[in-house]
């Protein structure tokens, strides 16, 4: 070890502001906060459902309002960001080999987007959202 080692100054808490690609990495990582928060909201809804009709309906009433709408819009944004970033790396995560060649990544990504759209429409239809 040299007597004057070069120490690069890296902020432990703000390093991801240095480069757009670091910031994009962090934007993917923080989606978990919103997925987790939504899971807790689902858990809360389930708890109120198990307590009976009055409790559940007061939960639904409390869910209405501008702050819930704003919060859920933010959660939706990050949920979509998780979905797109997740699907975009599927060719790296599970490459499909056919004989000597690999299936071009765009087909794997496109297949995931297609399934995503079908699943989303099916859930909306089955849930009676239309």
């Amino acid at each position, binding site marked *: 070890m040299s007597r004057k080692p070069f120490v690069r100054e890296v902020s432990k808490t703000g390093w991801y502001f240095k480069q757009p690609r670091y910031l994009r990495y962090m934007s993917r990582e923080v989606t978990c906060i919103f997925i987790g928060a939504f899971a807790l909201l689902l858990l809360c809804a389930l708890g109120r459902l198990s307590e009976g009709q009055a409790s559940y309906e007061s939960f639904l009433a409390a869910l209405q309002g501008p702050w819930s709408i704003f919060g859920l819009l933010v959660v*939706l944004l990050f949920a979509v960001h998780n979905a797109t970033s997740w699907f975009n790396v599927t060719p790296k995560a599970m490459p499909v080999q056919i004989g000597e060649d690999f299936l071009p990544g765009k087909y794997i990504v496109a297949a995931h987007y297609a399934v995503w759209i079908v699943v989303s429409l099916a859930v*909306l239809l089955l849930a009676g959202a239309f």
Partner: protein
Amino acid sequence: MTKSNKPIVWSLFAAGGTLAAFLAPVLVLLFLLAALGRPPLLLHYSQLHAFAAHWFGKLFLLVVIALFLWHAAHRLRVTLHDFGLRQDTAVAAVVYVVAAAGTLLSMLYLLRI
């Protein structure tokens, strides 16, 4: 060699991430409709209660809540390290305990329906 629990938490993370990618946006949309004052039929008490009373509905809700929680817990553990919080053992304990508690709680709620 000490045994690692990484394969378990990582597979829960990956499974949860995939499920969240396919389902989280549309499920959030259902709650957004409810917040806007026009909940979809499924979120009405009688419909949701009937759904959660059926074994398939129970399984669906348990898998969704548990995998979302475990996905978020594992990724949050790594992300907190990236944000400069280096007490990994404590962070891991907290996030996994919350995920485990949420999983058990959702089972308890579902058994009561």
